Protein backbone atom coordinates (compact mmCIF):
# COMPACT_ATOMS: atom_id res chain seq x y z
CA UNK A 1 0.00 0.00 0.00
CA UNK A 2 1.66 3.24 -1.08
CA UNK A 3 1.61 6.33 1.12
CA UNK A 4 -1.55 8.19 0.14
CA UNK A 5 -0.93 11.17 2.37
CA UNK A 6 -4.07 10.63 4.40
CA UNK A 7 -2.26 11.22 7.72
CA UNK A 8 -1.94 14.94 6.90
CA UNK A 9 -5.69 15.31 7.30
CA UNK A 10 -5.56 14.34 10.94
CA UNK A 11 -2.62 16.54 11.78
CA UNK A 12 -3.41 19.60 13.90
CA UNK A 13 -6.45 21.51 12.75
CA UNK A 14 -6.18 20.57 9.08
CA UNK A 15 -9.61 18.96 8.82
CA UNK A 16 -11.27 21.91 10.58
CA UNK A 17 -9.45 24.32 8.26
CA UNK A 18 -10.66 22.44 5.20
CA UNK A 19 -14.23 22.49 6.49
CA UNK A 20 -13.88 26.20 7.18
CA UNK A 21 -12.77 26.73 3.58
CA UNK A 22 -15.69 24.71 2.32
CA UNK A 23 -18.04 26.82 4.41
CA UNK A 24 -16.77 29.98 2.66
CA UNK A 25 -17.83 28.56 -0.71
CA UNK A 26 -21.12 27.16 0.58
CA UNK A 27 -21.97 30.43 2.34
CA UNK A 28 -21.46 32.42 -0.85
CA UNK A 29 -23.68 30.03 -2.79
CA UNK A 30 -26.42 30.07 -0.14
CA UNK A 31 -26.47 33.88 -0.01
CA UNK A 32 -26.60 34.03 -3.81
CA UNK A 33 -29.40 31.47 -4.01
CA UNK A 34 -31.38 33.28 -1.32
CA UNK A 35 -31.25 36.50 -3.35
CA UNK A 36 -31.64 34.83 -6.75
CA UNK A 37 -34.85 32.96 -6.01
CA UNK A 38 -37.11 35.98 -5.29
CA UNK A 39 -35.44 38.03 -8.05
CA UNK A 40 -35.73 35.11 -10.45
CA UNK A 41 -39.43 34.68 -9.71
CA UNK A 42 -39.95 38.37 -10.50
CA UNK A 43 -37.89 38.08 -13.67
CA UNK A 44 -39.80 34.99 -14.76
CA UNK A 45 -43.13 36.75 -14.34
CA UNK A 46 -41.84 39.83 -16.17
CA UNK A 47 -40.61 37.61 -19.00
CA UNK A 48 -44.10 36.32 -19.73
CA UNK A 49 -45.10 39.93 -20.50
CA UNK A 50 -46.24 40.67 -24.05
CA UNK A 51 -44.48 44.03 -24.23
CA UNK A 52 -41.84 43.63 -27.02
CA UNK A 53 -39.28 45.94 -25.36
CA UNK A 54 -39.41 44.12 -22.01
CA UNK A 55 -39.25 40.82 -23.90
CA UNK A 56 -36.17 41.89 -25.87
CA UNK A 57 -34.31 43.30 -22.86
CA UNK A 58 -34.91 40.28 -20.62
CA UNK A 59 -34.06 37.95 -23.48
CA UNK A 60 -30.70 39.62 -24.14
CA UNK A 61 -29.88 39.59 -20.41
CA UNK A 62 -30.75 35.92 -20.15
CA UNK A 63 -28.89 34.84 -23.29
CA UNK A 64 -25.73 36.80 -22.46
CA UNK A 65 -25.53 35.54 -18.89
CA UNK A 66 -26.24 31.97 -19.88
CA UNK A 67 -23.82 31.79 -22.79
CA UNK A 68 -20.85 33.28 -20.93
CA UNK A 69 -18.84 30.92 -18.73
CA UNK A 70 -19.35 31.94 -15.09
CA UNK A 71 -15.63 32.41 -14.72
CA UNK A 72 -15.69 35.08 -17.46
CA UNK A 73 -18.47 36.88 -15.55
CA UNK A 74 -16.37 36.68 -12.38
CA UNK A 75 -13.41 38.21 -14.21
CA UNK A 76 -15.57 40.98 -15.66
CA UNK A 77 -16.90 41.98 -12.24
CA UNK A 78 -13.72 41.42 -10.26
CA UNK A 79 -11.19 42.99 -12.62
CA UNK A 80 -13.56 45.19 -14.60
CA UNK A 81 -15.02 47.06 -11.62
CA UNK A 82 -11.61 48.44 -10.76
CA UNK A 83 -10.87 49.80 -14.22
CA UNK A 84 -14.41 50.93 -15.01
CA UNK A 85 -15.41 52.60 -11.73
CA UNK A 86 -12.12 52.82 -9.89
CA UNK A 87 -13.52 50.82 -6.98
CA UNK A 88 -11.82 47.81 -5.54
CA UNK A 89 -14.29 45.13 -4.54
CA UNK A 90 -13.36 42.03 -2.62
CA UNK A 91 -13.43 38.61 -4.22
CA UNK A 92 -16.30 37.59 -1.94
CA UNK A 93 -18.47 40.53 -2.96
CA UNK A 94 -17.66 40.00 -6.65
CA UNK A 95 -18.67 36.34 -6.27
CA UNK A 96 -21.98 37.15 -4.61
CA UNK A 97 -22.77 39.71 -7.33
CA UNK A 98 -21.94 37.32 -10.17
CA UNK A 99 -23.70 34.30 -8.73
CA UNK A 100 -26.77 36.38 -7.93
CA UNK A 101 -26.91 37.78 -11.47
CA UNK A 102 -26.38 34.30 -12.90
CA UNK A 103 -28.79 32.62 -10.47
CA UNK A 104 -31.47 35.20 -11.22
CA UNK A 105 -31.17 34.48 -14.94
CA UNK A 106 -31.36 30.72 -14.42
CA UNK A 107 -34.23 30.97 -11.95
CA UNK A 108 -36.06 33.44 -14.18
CA UNK A 109 -35.90 31.00 -17.05
CA UNK A 110 -37.19 28.16 -14.85
CA UNK A 111 -40.09 30.28 -13.62
CA UNK A 112 -40.96 31.39 -17.15
CA UNK A 113 -40.84 27.77 -18.32
CA UNK A 114 -43.10 26.66 -15.47
CA UNK A 115 -45.58 29.47 -16.07
CA UNK A 116 -45.95 28.90 -19.80
CA UNK A 117 -46.24 25.15 -19.25
CA UNK A 118 -49.60 25.67 -17.51
CA UNK A 119 -52.14 24.98 -20.27
CA UNK A 120 -54.44 27.80 -21.32
CA UNK A 121 -57.54 25.81 -20.40
CA UNK A 122 -56.60 26.10 -16.73
CA UNK A 123 -57.12 29.86 -16.96
CA UNK A 124 -60.26 29.45 -19.06
CA UNK A 125 -61.79 26.88 -16.74
CA UNK A 126 -61.09 29.11 -13.73
CA UNK A 127 -62.78 32.01 -15.49
CA UNK A 128 -65.73 29.78 -16.37
CA UNK A 129 -65.99 28.85 -12.69
CA UNK A 130 -66.17 32.60 -11.94
CA UNK A 131 -62.82 32.82 -10.13
CA UNK A 132 -61.35 36.30 -10.14
CA UNK A 133 -57.85 36.63 -11.72
CA UNK A 134 -56.31 36.89 -8.22
CA UNK A 135 -58.09 33.74 -7.06
CA UNK A 136 -57.15 31.97 -10.28
CA UNK A 137 -53.48 32.61 -9.51
CA UNK A 138 -53.69 31.74 -5.81
CA UNK A 139 -55.72 28.55 -6.05
CA UNK A 140 -55.01 27.23 -9.53
CA UNK A 141 -51.88 28.50 -11.22
CA UNK A 142 -49.40 29.04 -8.39
CA UNK A 143 -49.85 25.61 -6.72
CA UNK A 144 -49.18 23.89 -10.05
CA UNK A 145 -46.22 26.12 -10.87
CA UNK A 146 -44.65 25.63 -7.45
CA UNK A 147 -44.74 21.86 -7.80
CA UNK A 148 -42.77 22.07 -11.02
CA UNK A 149 -40.42 24.69 -9.63
CA UNK A 150 -39.33 23.23 -6.30
CA UNK A 151 -37.27 20.31 -7.68
CA UNK A 152 -35.70 22.59 -10.28
CA UNK A 153 -34.79 25.23 -7.68
CA UNK A 154 -33.24 22.59 -5.45
CA UNK A 155 -31.14 21.52 -8.43
CA UNK A 156 -30.11 25.13 -8.87
CA UNK A 157 -28.67 25.05 -5.33
CA UNK A 158 -26.36 22.13 -6.18
CA UNK A 159 -25.33 23.81 -9.42
CA UNK A 160 -24.60 26.96 -7.45
CA UNK A 161 -22.49 25.08 -4.87
CA UNK A 162 -20.53 23.36 -7.63
CA UNK A 163 -20.01 26.62 -9.51
CA UNK A 164 -18.77 28.53 -6.47
CA UNK A 165 -15.61 26.39 -6.54
CA UNK A 166 -14.55 28.88 -9.24
CA UNK A 167 -14.00 31.64 -6.67
CA UNK A 168 -10.53 30.19 -6.14
CA UNK A 169 -9.62 31.75 -9.48
CA UNK A 170 -10.24 35.30 -8.28
CA UNK A 171 -8.28 34.82 -5.11
CA UNK A 172 -10.93 34.01 -2.51
CA UNK A 173 -9.52 31.73 0.18
CA UNK A 174 -11.84 28.74 0.03
CA UNK A 175 -11.50 24.99 0.38
CA UNK A 176 -9.13 24.44 -2.58
CA UNK A 177 -6.88 27.27 -1.49
CA UNK A 178 -6.74 25.86 2.05
CA UNK A 179 -5.98 22.45 0.53
CA UNK A 180 -3.08 23.95 -1.43
CA UNK A 181 -1.74 25.59 1.73
CA UNK A 182 -1.93 22.35 3.69
CA UNK A 183 -0.18 20.40 0.93
CA UNK A 184 2.51 23.06 0.64
CA UNK A 185 3.10 23.15 4.42
CA UNK A 186 3.52 19.37 4.59
CA UNK A 187 5.61 19.08 1.42
CA UNK A 188 8.60 17.63 3.27
CA UNK A 189 6.97 15.37 5.83
CA UNK A 190 4.28 14.02 3.55
CA UNK A 191 5.09 14.38 -0.16
CA UNK A 192 1.98 12.50 -1.24
CA UNK A 193 -0.42 14.71 0.70
CA UNK A 194 -1.94 16.00 -2.56
CA UNK A 195 -3.69 12.68 -3.09
CA UNK A 196 -5.37 12.44 0.28
CA UNK A 197 -6.24 16.13 0.53
CA UNK A 198 -7.74 16.54 -2.96
CA UNK A 199 -9.62 13.27 -2.62
CA UNK A 200 -11.08 14.62 0.64
CA UNK A 201 -12.13 17.88 -1.03
CA UNK A 202 -13.77 15.93 -3.86
CA UNK A 203 -15.65 13.79 -1.35
CA UNK A 204 -16.71 16.87 0.67
CA UNK A 205 -18.39 18.37 -2.39
CA UNK A 206 -20.00 15.02 -3.14
CA UNK A 207 -21.34 14.67 0.42
CA UNK A 208 -22.95 18.10 0.19
CA UNK A 209 -24.36 17.94 -3.34
CA UNK A 210 -25.45 14.32 -3.56
CA UNK A 211 -28.22 14.37 -0.90
CA UNK A 212 -29.56 17.63 -2.33
CA UNK A 213 -29.78 16.27 -5.86
CA UNK A 214 -31.32 13.02 -4.56
CA UNK A 215 -34.01 15.11 -2.83
CA UNK A 216 -34.66 17.02 -6.05
CA UNK A 217 -34.95 13.77 -8.00
CA UNK A 218 -37.36 12.30 -5.47
CA UNK A 219 -39.60 15.36 -5.47
CA UNK A 220 -39.56 15.46 -9.25
CA UNK A 221 -40.80 11.86 -9.37
CA UNK A 222 -43.42 12.47 -6.71
CA UNK A 223 -44.88 15.58 -8.28
CA UNK A 224 -43.94 15.09 -11.93
Amino acid at each position, binding site marked *: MPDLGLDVLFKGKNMIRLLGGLWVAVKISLISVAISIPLGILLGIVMTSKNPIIKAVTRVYLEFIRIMPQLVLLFIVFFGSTSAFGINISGELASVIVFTVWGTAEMGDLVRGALISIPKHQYESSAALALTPAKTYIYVIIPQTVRRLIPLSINLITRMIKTT*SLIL*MIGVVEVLKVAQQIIEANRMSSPNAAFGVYLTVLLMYFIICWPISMLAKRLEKKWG
Partner: protein
Amino acid sequence: MNWDFIWKYLPLYEKAALLTVRIGWAGIALAIIIGILCAIVLYFRIAVLRRIVSVYIEISRNTPLLIQLFFIYYALPKVGIPITPEVCGVAGLAFLGGSYMAEAFRSGLEAIEPIQMESALSLGLEKSQALRYVIMPQAVSVSVPAFVANVIFLLKETSVFSAVSLMDLMFTAKDLIGLYYKTTESLFLLVVFYLIILLPISILGSILERRLRHAGFGS
Protein backbone atom coordinates in the same frame (compact mmCIF):
# COMPACT_ATOMS: atom_id res chain seq x y z
CA MET B 1 -10.54 51.34 -25.62
CA ASN B 2 -7.03 51.02 -26.98
CA TRP B 3 -7.41 49.37 -30.41
CA ASP B 4 -3.66 49.11 -31.04
CA PHE B 5 -3.41 46.94 -27.94
CA ILE B 6 -6.29 44.80 -29.15
CA TRP B 7 -4.74 44.22 -32.60
CA LYS B 8 -1.38 43.51 -31.05
CA TYR B 9 -2.62 40.79 -28.72
CA LEU B 10 -5.28 39.31 -30.99
CA PRO B 11 -2.98 36.46 -32.16
CA LEU B 12 -2.38 35.48 -28.52
CA TYR B 13 -6.11 35.10 -27.99
CA GLU B 14 -6.48 33.19 -31.26
CA LYS B 15 -3.90 30.68 -30.10
CA ALA B 16 -5.62 30.36 -26.72
CA ALA B 17 -9.04 29.95 -28.33
CA LEU B 18 -7.72 27.19 -30.58
CA LEU B 19 -6.41 25.37 -27.51
CA THR B 20 -9.78 25.71 -25.78
CA VAL B 21 -11.60 24.42 -28.85
CA ARG B 22 -9.18 21.56 -29.43
CA ILE B 23 -9.30 20.26 -25.88
CA GLY B 24 -13.00 21.02 -25.67
CA TRP B 25 -13.91 18.94 -28.71
CA ALA B 26 -11.61 16.08 -27.76
CA GLY B 27 -13.20 15.98 -24.29
CA ILE B 28 -16.73 16.22 -25.68
CA ALA B 29 -16.09 13.47 -28.25
CA LEU B 30 -14.91 11.17 -25.44
CA ALA B 31 -17.83 12.25 -23.27
CA ILE B 32 -20.26 11.25 -26.03
CA ILE B 33 -18.68 7.80 -26.29
CA ILE B 34 -18.78 7.34 -22.50
CA GLY B 35 -22.34 8.65 -22.48
CA ILE B 36 -23.53 6.19 -25.14
CA LEU B 37 -21.89 3.24 -23.37
CA CYS B 38 -23.36 4.22 -19.99
CA ALA B 39 -26.80 4.83 -21.46
CA ILE B 40 -26.78 1.37 -23.08
CA VAL B 41 -25.74 -0.24 -19.79
CA LEU B 42 -28.55 1.56 -17.94
CA TYR B 43 -31.20 0.98 -20.61
CA PHE B 44 -30.62 -2.77 -20.85
CA ARG B 45 -30.10 -3.05 -17.08
CA ILE B 46 -26.86 -5.00 -17.45
CA ALA B 47 -26.06 -6.48 -14.03
CA VAL B 48 -23.01 -5.30 -12.04
CA LEU B 49 -22.01 -2.78 -14.74
CA ARG B 50 -25.21 -0.93 -13.99
CA ARG B 51 -24.12 -0.38 -10.38
CA ILE B 52 -20.71 0.89 -11.43
CA VAL B 53 -22.24 3.25 -13.98
CA SER B 54 -24.71 4.66 -11.44
CA VAL B 55 -21.94 5.35 -8.93
CA TYR B 56 -19.85 7.01 -11.63
CA ILE B 57 -22.76 9.19 -12.73
CA GLU B 58 -23.52 10.35 -9.19
CA ILE B 59 -19.89 11.19 -8.42
CA SER B 60 -19.33 12.95 -11.70
CA ARG B 61 -22.53 15.01 -11.52
CA ASN B 62 -22.19 16.02 -7.88
CA THR B 63 -18.64 17.35 -7.88
CA PRO B 64 -17.28 20.46 -9.63
CA LEU B 65 -15.02 20.12 -12.69
CA LEU B 66 -12.40 22.31 -11.04
CA ILE B 67 -11.98 19.83 -8.18
CA GLN B 68 -12.01 16.88 -10.59
CA LEU B 69 -9.20 18.54 -12.57
CA PHE B 70 -7.19 19.21 -9.41
CA PHE B 71 -7.59 15.59 -8.41
CA ILE B 72 -6.56 14.28 -11.83
CA TYR B 73 -3.68 16.70 -12.24
CA TYR B 74 -2.14 16.85 -8.76
CA ALA B 75 -3.32 13.72 -6.99
CA LEU B 76 -3.10 10.97 -9.62
CA PRO B 77 0.66 11.45 -10.26
CA LYS B 78 1.16 10.68 -6.55
CA VAL B 79 -0.10 7.14 -7.10
CA GLY B 80 2.03 6.67 -10.19
CA ILE B 81 -0.22 7.96 -12.98
CA PRO B 82 1.73 10.71 -14.74
CA ILE B 83 -0.39 13.25 -16.58
CA THR B 84 0.17 16.26 -18.84
CA PRO B 85 -2.04 19.37 -18.67
CA GLU B 86 -3.65 18.58 -22.04
CA VAL B 87 -4.47 15.00 -21.11
CA CYS B 88 -5.80 16.25 -17.78
CA GLY B 89 -8.11 18.73 -19.52
CA VAL B 90 -9.47 16.13 -21.92
CA ALA B 91 -9.83 13.49 -19.20
CA GLY B 92 -11.55 15.89 -16.81
CA LEU B 93 -14.01 17.07 -19.43
CA ALA B 94 -14.72 13.49 -20.50
CA PHE B 95 -15.24 12.40 -16.89
CA LEU B 96 -17.67 15.23 -16.21
CA GLY B 97 -19.37 15.17 -19.62
CA GLY B 98 -19.81 11.40 -19.77
CA SER B 99 -22.44 11.43 -17.03
CA TYR B 100 -24.34 14.39 -18.49
CA MET B 101 -24.37 12.75 -21.93
CA ALA B 102 -25.42 9.42 -20.41
CA GLU B 103 -28.42 11.06 -18.75
CA ALA B 104 -29.39 12.82 -22.00
CA PHE B 105 -29.24 9.60 -24.04
CA ARG B 106 -30.90 7.47 -21.38
CA SER B 107 -33.85 9.82 -21.00
CA GLY B 108 -34.17 9.79 -24.80
CA LEU B 109 -34.29 5.99 -24.85
CA GLU B 110 -36.71 5.79 -21.94
CA ALA B 111 -39.04 8.35 -23.50
CA ILE B 112 -39.89 5.81 -26.19
CA GLU B 113 -42.95 3.82 -25.12
CA PRO B 114 -42.44 0.03 -24.72
CA ILE B 115 -45.24 -0.47 -27.23
CA GLN B 116 -42.86 0.72 -29.96
CA MET B 117 -40.49 -2.14 -29.23
CA GLU B 118 -43.33 -4.64 -28.83
CA SER B 119 -44.94 -3.61 -32.11
CA ALA B 120 -41.62 -3.78 -33.92
CA LEU B 121 -40.97 -7.28 -32.55
CA SER B 122 -44.45 -8.48 -33.43
CA LEU B 123 -43.93 -7.23 -36.98
CA GLY B 124 -41.05 -9.68 -37.17
CA LEU B 125 -38.11 -7.34 -36.70
CA GLU B 126 -35.05 -8.60 -34.90
CA LYS B 127 -34.25 -6.83 -31.63
CA SER B 128 -31.22 -5.16 -33.25
CA GLN B 129 -33.35 -4.07 -36.22
CA ALA B 130 -36.00 -2.68 -33.90
CA LEU B 131 -33.35 -0.66 -32.14
CA ARG B 132 -31.75 0.50 -35.38
CA TYR B 133 -34.92 1.43 -37.30
CA VAL B 134 -37.56 2.15 -34.66
CA ILE B 135 -36.16 3.07 -31.25
CA MET B 136 -32.94 4.92 -32.10
CA PRO B 137 -34.33 7.44 -34.62
CA GLN B 138 -36.98 8.52 -32.12
CA ALA B 139 -34.67 8.44 -29.09
CA VAL B 140 -32.07 10.56 -30.87
CA SER B 141 -34.56 13.27 -31.72
CA VAL B 142 -35.82 13.31 -28.12
CA SER B 143 -32.30 13.70 -26.72
CA VAL B 144 -31.15 16.44 -29.10
CA PRO B 145 -32.10 19.44 -26.90
CA ALA B 146 -30.37 17.98 -23.83
CA PHE B 147 -27.42 16.95 -25.99
CA VAL B 148 -26.92 20.46 -27.39
CA ALA B 149 -27.32 21.99 -23.91
CA ASN B 150 -24.61 19.61 -22.68
CA VAL B 151 -22.21 20.53 -25.48
CA ILE B 152 -22.58 24.22 -24.65
CA PHE B 153 -22.28 23.51 -20.93
CA LEU B 154 -19.08 21.51 -21.46
CA LEU B 155 -17.52 24.14 -23.71
CA LYS B 156 -18.27 26.74 -21.03
CA GLU B 157 -16.71 24.50 -18.40
CA THR B 158 -13.42 24.53 -20.33
CA SER B 159 -12.86 28.00 -18.87
CA VAL B 160 -11.38 26.44 -15.70
CA PHE B 161 -8.52 24.79 -17.59
CA SER B 162 -6.11 27.56 -16.62
CA ALA B 163 -6.15 26.06 -13.11
CA VAL B 164 -4.06 23.15 -14.40
CA SER B 165 -1.67 25.51 -16.23
CA LEU B 166 -3.21 25.27 -19.68
CA MET B 167 -2.75 28.54 -21.52
CA ASP B 168 -6.37 29.04 -22.49
CA LEU B 169 -8.43 32.23 -22.93
CA MET B 170 -8.84 32.85 -19.19
CA PHE B 171 -5.10 32.40 -18.64
CA THR B 172 -4.29 34.84 -21.46
CA ALA B 173 -6.72 37.46 -20.18
CA LYS B 174 -5.47 37.22 -16.61
CA ASP B 175 -1.88 37.39 -17.81
CA LEU B 176 -2.48 40.55 -19.86
CA ILE B 177 -4.39 42.21 -17.03
CA GLY B 178 -1.53 41.48 -14.65
CA LEU B 179 1.19 42.60 -17.07
CA TYR B 180 -0.25 45.74 -18.65
CA TYR B 181 -3.32 46.78 -16.62
CA LYS B 182 -5.28 46.92 -19.91
CA THR B 183 -8.29 45.45 -18.15
CA THR B 184 -11.05 46.70 -20.42
CA GLU B 185 -9.33 45.56 -23.60
CA SER B 186 -8.36 42.17 -22.19
CA LEU B 187 -11.87 41.48 -20.91
CA PHE B 188 -13.41 42.71 -24.17
CA LEU B 189 -11.31 40.27 -26.19
CA LEU B 190 -12.15 37.50 -23.71
CA VAL B 191 -15.90 38.02 -24.15
CA VAL B 192 -15.62 38.32 -27.95
CA PHE B 193 -13.68 35.09 -28.24
CA TYR B 194 -16.08 33.14 -26.04
CA LEU B 195 -18.98 34.48 -28.11
CA ILE B 196 -17.21 33.36 -31.30
CA ILE B 197 -16.85 29.86 -29.85
CA LEU B 198 -20.26 29.51 -28.21
CA LEU B 199 -22.76 31.58 -30.19
CA PRO B 200 -22.72 29.53 -33.44
CA ILE B 201 -23.34 26.30 -31.50
CA SER B 202 -26.13 27.88 -29.52
CA ILE B 203 -27.84 29.12 -32.72
CA LEU B 204 -27.26 25.84 -34.53
CA GLY B 205 -28.74 24.05 -31.53
CA SER B 206 -31.96 26.01 -31.55
CA ILE B 207 -32.39 25.51 -35.32
CA LEU B 208 -31.83 21.78 -34.92
CA GLU B 209 -34.22 21.62 -32.01
CA ARG B 210 -36.98 23.33 -34.00
CA ARG B 211 -36.52 21.00 -36.95
CA LEU B 212 -36.59 17.86 -34.82
CA ARG B 213 -39.49 18.85 -32.63
CA HIS B 214 -42.05 16.99 -34.74
CA ALA B 215 -39.92 13.97 -35.45
CA GLY B 216 -41.27 11.93 -32.53
CA PHE B 217 -44.22 9.62 -32.97
CA GLY B 218 -47.61 10.92 -31.92
CA SER B 219 -46.48 14.37 -30.88
